[in-house]
């Protein structure tokens, strides 16, 4: 399969950022970040803020992978699941960090980042779904997520566009959303303004290993990029990194998601907040667009948009919010989430000395960007990462029970 066909390739607004085709000379860099999605860029930005010299190598354009297809829900409530309490703790910690992250990013980038504290309403559309949602609500409530059970009338008072079949719901007023495309553009700009570089069309083809330590990478154009550390943030492709030794292969697989973008008008806004059922979510954007997502498909690197996928998303969105039928269908997209065996990300040292990974965020990359980037920036600065990020240590699938924190010489549990 040609490389390009593996990437989300639908027509869409181009991200406009000051992009470089090549960087300045190879003076001492503190970190190379491989992958210019939301995670890679956020790591670079937070590192630059700490005064580190960073360079991001993106083989396509910033946000060309999953970031450009993400809905941008900052909604840990919807991810609540039994047996995943560690993941939930990370999601909640990161969601709490989002408001400050967004305002700092707006200041550093001088761009709009599109953070909307819109809240979310998880609804059931029949009795069966209501029973299932109530079961989930009890879990949410036990995690003190600030949720409230609403009877059908309460749901429709909040969202009059909801189908009258609504059988109850969970209101999560603390949830928020961000437009990931604005986010990516702002992050890229913030990296540049902070003294870092974002280099596009830079396909990393080799790792520079000296004395067992990864000291940099080589790109397809023959250039070498040397740095104190290399951060791998290549999303769904991190499990297939050919320039890493085979034993350092990461347990990351692509999980396909299809989504749609609809466009309404100021008079036609089917909902004011995130509306989610057990099968679909609808995220309103301030400009009147509506994002509908997402399928979850184990299809390898396939990013075909299928009739069945679009049908399912539209049918389920229509079932919840009948007014969506009136909207213009402006985009159909498919992207690849980086999935791990336990759905939790991989953040920290891994494989050869000098390598840090920040990947495997599955459905939660945008949500987890603040926590991940803070952890990576701390490790790059030889400081202990936030305690909640330590549950994402990459060695957990290789039989390492404790995080390997090579970056920090004197390490203790961070006081929370």
């Amino acid at each position, binding site marked *: 399969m040609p490389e390009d066909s593996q990437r989300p390739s639908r027509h869409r607004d181009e991200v406009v950022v000051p992009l470089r085709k090549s960087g300045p000379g190879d003076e001492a860099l503190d970190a190379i970040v491989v992958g210019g999605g939301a995670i890679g860029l956020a790591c670079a930005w937070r590192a630059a803020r700490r005064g580190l010299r960073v360079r991001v190598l993106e083989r396509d354009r910033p946000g060309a992978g999953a970031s450009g297809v993400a809905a941008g829900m900052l909604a840990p409530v919807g991810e609540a699941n*039994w047996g995943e309490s560690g993941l939930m703790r990370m999601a909640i910690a990161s969601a709490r960090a989002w408001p400050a992250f967004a305002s700092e990013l707006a200041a550093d980038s001088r761009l709009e980042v599109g953070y909307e504290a819109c809240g979310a309403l998880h609804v059931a559309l029949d009795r069966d779904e209501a029973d299932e949602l109530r079961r989930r609500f009890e879990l949410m409530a036990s995690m003190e997520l600030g949720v409230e059970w609403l009877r059908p009338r309460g749901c429709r008072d909040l969202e009059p566009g909801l189908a009258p079949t609504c059988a109850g719901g969970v209101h999560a007023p603390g949830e928020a959303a961000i437009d990931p495309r604005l986010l990516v553009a702002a992050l890229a700009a913030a990296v540049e303004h902070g003294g870092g570089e974002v280099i596009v069309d830079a396909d990393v083809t080799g790792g520079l290993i000296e004395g067992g330590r990864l000291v940099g990478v080589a790109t397809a154009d023959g250039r070498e990029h040397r740095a104190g550390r290399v951060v791998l943030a290549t999303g769904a492709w991190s*499990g297939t990194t050919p320039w890493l030794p085979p034993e350092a292969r990461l*347990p990351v*697989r692509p999980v396909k998601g299809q989504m749609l973008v609809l466009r309404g008008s100021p008079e036609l806004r089917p909902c004011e907040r995130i509306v989610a059922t057990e099968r679909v979510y609808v995220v309103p954007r301030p400009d009147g667009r509506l994002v509908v997502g997402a399928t979850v498909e184990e299809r390898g*690197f396939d990013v075909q948009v299928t009739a069945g996928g679009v049908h399912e998303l539209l049918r389920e969105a229509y079932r919840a919010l009948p007014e969506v039928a009136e909207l213009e269908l402006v985009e159909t997209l498919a992207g690849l989430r980086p999935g791990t065996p*336990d759905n939790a990300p991989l953040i920290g040292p891994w494989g050869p000395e000098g390598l840090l990974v920040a990947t495997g965020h599955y459905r939660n990359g945008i949500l987890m960007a603040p926590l991940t980037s803070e952890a990576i920036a701390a490790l790059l600065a030889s400081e202990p990462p936030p305690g909640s990020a330590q549950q994402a240590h990459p060695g957990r699938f290789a039989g390492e029970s404790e995080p390997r924190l090579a970056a920090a010489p004197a390490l203790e549990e961070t006081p929370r």
Partner: protein
Amino acid sequence: MRSRVDSGSRTPVSVPGDGPADGGAARAGDQPDSGFDLGDRSWGSRLIVGSGGFPSLEAMERALTASGAEIVTVALRRVDPGARGSALEVIDRLGLFALPNTAGCYTARDAVRTAHLAREVFETDWIKLEVIGDDRTLFPDAVELVGAAEILVDEGFTVLPYTNDDPILARRLEDVGCSAVMPLGSPIGSGMGIRNPYNVQIIVERATVPVILDAGIGTASDAALAMELGCDGVLLSSSVARAKDPERMALAMRRAVEAGYGARRAGRIPRKLHAEASTPGEGIPELG
């Protein structure tokens, strides 16, 4: 698409048999299960688990291990057999048999085509045949089902059809050459248990191929009941995958299937209206 190397050629665990259920009840304590024949193979576990709906691959792996299942169904429509790190890799690593199914097919033609694709990529001619009638109930479409079964049997497939709890339909499927019949207990994913145990019992009495209860199991007692009714096995998915603790539920299901099978073989006492004292009356000598 890369095809998998060894999915079809694996020899499942074979447990030495001690005859059919009715014959060997006396030594049941020594050998809790004799294993059962399905297709041209003998299987040690009577529990078949679906691979869909688990919260994570790790949760699936733990549950499959706890279940003791040897056969795991996989929806061809929902996985790419060539993809690395997917459910199939887990099933392979655990040494289980991945049984492809035709979930999501609504016509005989679609099901037959999907079975062909499955044979190619899974390198097995076993197929769990599902032809769905509507997406609200997910009930089988009987007419399409028999049509697809005829074609696939004729083409040499080992056909395991998901069917209604209709004894006549079950017999028709057997007559066209299916290797088992797999009646539902209640709608897929409903967890409503076995709504018509009489029909299941009639199917069991008349069948000469294995009967596997497929769909509707909600909790362990449902699985035990299926076995007590005389089913040869149970196929379940949602009840484990969507349990709060899938691993624990998988273990419970494994034990329930064993318990129900054991109770069936042990021969239950008849139901009576009045009490019958378990201690013998005065003056009657205890024997043995």
